[in-house]
């Protein structure tokens, strides 16, 4: 059973946000498929990716919602922040405007997620150092001032991509360990998986007793 499909202890929900064209979908693709996707089309609404990782010996499944950066989807994508355990805010180091919009993304992330959500700032396209428009130090300062984790990564070369996703999971896992993240809260963004005939089985049997339509309106 060690390699079974449900062989993980937790599910963490992530969202990826940031301006259009900063490489959100490419980062996700690099992380889930370990491949660079050239000519990535614009995301429509939201897309979904998943991967199982390991943190401190615990298998964790990441459910990642990749949002569209276009302004016109802002109303739709905002609804996906709800219950995210991790939020990755992406900007493009070769385009200052994407960096300048960070505070607006950060405001959204703070307002629409819960206080324990781990927010990670990623400067993408670090392979294009020659066209750099935002210095590392400047972004680092912004991240420090706002209490964010920060790396520069490249979806093309894969540099730091793995690290960013894993770091975020590690921080979430720490919050679980020290008790600051309440797993019972529906919107914590974390689900604990039962090992065998555990809690979920029980609760689901209770559910049968409840008539779903009786509480539906």
């Amino acid at each position: 059973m060690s390699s079974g499909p449900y062989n993980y202890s937790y599910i963490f929900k992530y969202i990826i946000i940031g301006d259009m064209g900063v490489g959100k979908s490419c980062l996700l693709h690099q992380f889930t498929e370990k491949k660079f996707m050239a000519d990535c089309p614009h995301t429509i609404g939201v897309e979904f990716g998943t991967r199982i990782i390991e943190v401190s010996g615990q298998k964790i499944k990441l459910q990642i919602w990749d949002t569209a950066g276009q302004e016109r989807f802002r109303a739709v994508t905002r609804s996906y922040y709800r219950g995210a355990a991790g939020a990755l805010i992406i900007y493009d180091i070769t385009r200052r405007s994407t960096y300048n919009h960070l505070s607006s993304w950060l405001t959204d992330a703070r307002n629409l997620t819960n206080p324990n959500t781990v927010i990670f700032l990623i400067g993408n396209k670090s392979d294009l150092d020659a066209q750099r428009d935002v210095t590392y130090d400047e972004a680092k300062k912004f991240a420090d001032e706002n209490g964010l984790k920060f790396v520069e990564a490249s979806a093309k070369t894969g540099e730091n991509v793995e690290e960013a996703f894993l770091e975020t999971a590690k921080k979430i896992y720490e919050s679980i360990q020290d008790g600051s993240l309440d797993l019972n809260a529906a919107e914590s963004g974390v689900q604990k998986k039962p090992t065998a005939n555990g809690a979920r089985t029980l609760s689901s049997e209770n559910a049968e007793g409840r008539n779903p339509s009786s509480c539906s309106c």
Partner: protein
Amino acid sequence: MSLEPDLQTAVNGISNLRITTDQKLLDGLSQLSNCASKEDLHLSPISRKKRRPDLKTLIENQQILYYKQFLGSITEIRDGVEHLHSNLSDLNEICESMSTNLRASKQSSRNLIDEISKLESERKKLMVEKNLAQAYLNAFQLSGEDLKILRTTDSSTAILNEDFFKVFERIQQIQTNVAILLKVGHQATAVEIMDQMGLLHETALEKIYRWAQSRVKHVENPELSDVLAKSLSYLQIRPMLLKYVLDEYCTHRRSLFVRSYIDALTGAGNIKGIELIGGADPARYIGDMLAFIHQSIPNEKENLTILLKHCNKIDLNDKIVTCMSTIMDGVCRPLNVRLEQTILSGLDCPVMNKIDMCIKFYVETIEQILPVSNLLATLTELYSLCHQTFINQLRCQVQAEVGEYRPPGPDLTPSPIIQALLSLLGDLLKDTLPSSPEQAEILIQLVTSPVVSQINDVANRLGSPDMGVYLCNCLNQINIFLEIYPITKTISNTLKSQIDSQMDRLSSEQSSWLIAQLGISHMYTILNDKVETPLSTVPGMDSASLKIFVNKLDSVINDPESVLLPQIYHLSDTGTRKYVQQQSFRILAAIYRKVYEAVINPKNGYPSEILKMDPKTLEDSLCSDTTEVDTKDT
């Protein structure tokens, strides 16, 4: 002397006797010594002489004794030999009987060997038969062990183990074998086995089905998921059973999903529910609800994919989508109630527009994932409800605003309602335009056409120049607003042509007004009449009249604004105002050219120098700054 030699000889004889060496002699002597007693030694020689025969007798007696003894011994020996003989005869007899026995046993051994070889061949034959029987059993029957496994497994078994599936596969194998058997002939046996196996097969399937049905809801349990997937793959041969299991699963997941949806709405734990947050912002409320549903789909899909991963005889994708639809359909009712309530709660047009866009987005999203589902049907229905409501509401609002007749003020400026409606339209377009240009066009049409028709309506009740000015002002305002949006070309063009025709109308109004102001209408008539008499003699065309005309013309050149229709001043767009003015001046210039040509014609008898300015100069001075209008004109 005779004695003497005898004795001599005797003594010599005796001395010559080698007594010590001749054992026989020694023995004889010792024997003889026993015959004479001690007294005998003292016998006188006469007595000795006398006693000589005695000795002889003695010796003879001795000899006889010896013979008798010998005879006795011989008799004994003879007896012994006779005894021996009889013994040997016995022995011989025994040996002979033994030999007979041996011969007999030899015969019987030979018989035994024959027997053994016969049995051996028998055994071999039996072995072959046994192997055949075993092979037959293997091919066509379950072992006791198998039957036991089959019998002891039921739905209360914690987990269907490998052995059970092996038994099941054996049953299937036997069924295949029987099919071959049937082909090669053994009908009766084959049919019998087939019946038997059919029964067992059904039993086993039934057991798998019962087990799977009772456990299927625990697919997320890592210990069960693999076995469940396997069970379902076996159930494929009975699509109905597979369907029942999946139905059970879907019903269970469906109720779980509805519950989690309600939890998300009302808030579970210390987290605010969607309904609480959404109270202030209906568009977000609906967006959050739909996003929650959308986000639940991957998990359901994963579960189903795992559950059905071994199923290779069905259209997997189709099955998964069908099941997902069934599961997701659970929320249709609560979702429908909430959305309908929100949609019909009389929200502002901009909010309705947002909701409209949001539902439309999810209709498109869900259509890709669950193309045949109640959820999609519900959403589509809600979309059309929302869209209808929104469009009606917008139409009503616009109608209400433009409905009543409000005459323009004396300054002929557009009514503030137009501005209000345009800014409403602006709000709507901000949300609509990026995602749906078609919808944006509909909205523009919806707002502008009633406004335009109302403007026309109002304008029609106005006097001619007022109408033109008012129309130009209003339509211009709309057009300026629309120019920001690239998609409004057709509407904008229609408006523009309307404006142009109004401008032409205003131009002609202005021209008539100008001509009237200058009092030259009769001149124009006379010139066109082609009279034969010299024109200087015609009243109204005489030199004095021309002088008055020239004076008036001078004042126009000095102050071109003075001859404008009062309404023209109210044209809010300076470009339009200039254009109208220039148009009238151009007509004036054309008339002047005609007058000028008549005056310089000697046939008409005018005094020279009565018209100092040539027509070109006049035109230049009046229409000098008309470049922009000219380009517009062309």
